[in-house]
């Protein structure tokens, strides 16, 4: 599958490495080339400098043929905007978006984006651990 990941932070880089190792065609986007140092040395995909909220960059990243788009930058709003561009402008079949703010995550979920909030997930997980 062709997968575009926006944001090459710890999560983005690790996800890119895992998917690449499984044989998927992965393109990682980041506005800072220094972020690409996090990619594993055996990474075979493409690392591209640019903003995922920019149509031209997304086209360069091959968004038009992509099966999956994942938005994983630090900025909730940046993720939301890029994810919506991928979903509504480029009609990517599956779009996943990280939103730290639980309220915003809920809203965009009801608006039809596949979103997840690490805040909620981690808090619940911790609670579960502490109670067991």
């Amino acid at each position, binding site marked *: 599958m062709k997968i575009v990941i926006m944001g090459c932070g710890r999560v983005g880089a690790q996800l890119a490495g895992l998917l690449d190792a499984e044989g998927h065609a992965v393109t990682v986007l980041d506005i800072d080339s220094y972020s690409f140092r996090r990619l594993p040395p055996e990474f075979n995909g493409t690392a591209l400098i640019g903003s995922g*909220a*920019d*149509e*031209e960059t997304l086209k360069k990243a091959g968004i038009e043929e992509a099966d999956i788009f994942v938005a994983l930058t630090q*900025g*909730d*709003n*940046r993720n*939301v*905007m890029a994810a*919506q*561009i991928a979903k*509504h*402008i480029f009609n990517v079949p599956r779009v996943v978006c990280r939103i730290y*703010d639980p*309220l*915003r995550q809920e*809203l965009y979920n*009801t*608006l039809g984006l596949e979103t997840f909030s690490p805040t909620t997930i981690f808090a619940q997980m911790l609670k579960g651990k502490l109670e067991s």
Partner: protein
Amino acid sequence: MYIIVVGGGRVGYYLTKALLDEGHEVLVVEKSAIVCESFTDLLGSICFRGDGCEAATLAEVGTARADMFVAVTGDDEDNLVACQVAKHKFNVPRTIARIRNPKNETIFKKLGVDVTVSSTNIILEHIEEEVPTHPLTHLLTIRDKGLEIVQIKIPPESITVGKTIKELSLPPGSTLSLIIRKEHKPIIPKANTILQAEDQIIAVTTPESEETLRTTLRGT
């Protein structure tokens, strides 16, 4: 009207001031405490400190009863999300977003923002119009009707010089409404009005016909 303004920068400040002068009820949402304080000093207690993209903040400032919601932070993404939250969570009838990247204009429209204002485009246009050879100037856009009012100058070498209005084949939806001629009073064009070099024409047109109108009038 109750109007919420997100972003207390320069645009936010002058916009709020103008809206208050017009007698509207205005509330500014701004993240920075310092900016909020200066708003309170200058315009009274109309600034709420908070994140205008957060549903909780917007609930607190009574967004559900707002007639209009304007997002003018310096960040396109923030303006988009603020407007979407206002629109989808609080059903604000009219949302307006400022955008810096002109490319975002169509994207924002598609994603449900009612009106976008591109500061970059506005500045560009104004500077372009100062170039003496600039062929067409946008004077006004009437968005709801899809019309625009433009000014076109007839260059001396144009083949339209000496022709009557009825001899021109104007594109659909375009009407010449006024001719401003040197040392003359403005003329309301009639079918047999003859065009002269250096005539300034004020015309009503549509965005689709604008280019054809320009080439028809300036034709060489």
